[in-house]
């Protein structure tokens, strides 16, 4: 299985990642996910800063990709996560999974996002015109993770 992981300030191109995943021999399905900066609390959001733990972040993302591989037959996994200052509507995260069959690709993509949300060391700080605050973790993310841990 091909695993590609990147933590970067630069934007990414979903089409290029898709083309790369499509080169994977024997793959009959590709599922991709993109997460964007959304204005959660008000209309005054000016942007957010994503902090991470260099070194651990890349390792955590690779571990998650290989954990997915141990559950489903996967041809390739690409995970890209941006860090630094991002404006509303900017792309934050890309996950792409190529597999022989769609069921594995759909499940693995959700699995990777659920683990990333709970275990990859990224932290969001939102900036509004009035203040800045660290985003709190959500119980719904823990619930989403729990469904895979049985």
């Amino acid at each position, binding site marked *: 299985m091909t695993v590609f992981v990147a933590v970067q300030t630069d934007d990414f191109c979903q089409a290029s990642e898709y083309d790369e995943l499509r080169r994977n021999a024997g793959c009959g399905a590709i599922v991709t996910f993109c*997460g964007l900066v959304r204005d959660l609390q008000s209309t005054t959001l000016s942007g957010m800063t994503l902090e991470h*733990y260099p070194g651990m972040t890349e390792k*955590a993302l690779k571990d998650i990709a290989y954990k997915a591989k141990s559950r489903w037959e996967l041809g390739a996994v690409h995970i890209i996560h941006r860090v630094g200052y991002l404006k509303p509507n900017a792309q934050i995260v890309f996950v792409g999974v190529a597999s022989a069959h769609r069921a594995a690709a759909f499940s693995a993509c959700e699995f990777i996002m659920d683990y*990333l949300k709970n275990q*990859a*060391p*990224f*932290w*969001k700080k939102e900036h509004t015109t009035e203040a800045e605050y660290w985003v709190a973790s959500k119980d719904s993310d823990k619930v989403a993770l729990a469904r895979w841990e049985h």
Partner: protein
Amino acid sequence: MQINIRFFALLREQLGCEHIEFDYQGERTIAALRHTLAAHGDAWLALINGNTLAAINHTLCQDHAIISEGDEVAFFPPVTGG
């Protein structure tokens, strides 16, 4: 033993500290280290009162995990990426 301790995000801001090189003589568990650090002042109580996560050498760990000489230990709030 010498260990390297790092703090991130809200915890880093609350402590006013990003990184310490620490000569640690206590019991070699994350739980014991949390208690030693918590004695440094009110802000440091977050290490035992909150939901702060811990990692040893870039891997998330539980409170019973064992620390060794030269390890990089990190404490940080629950993650919010994605």
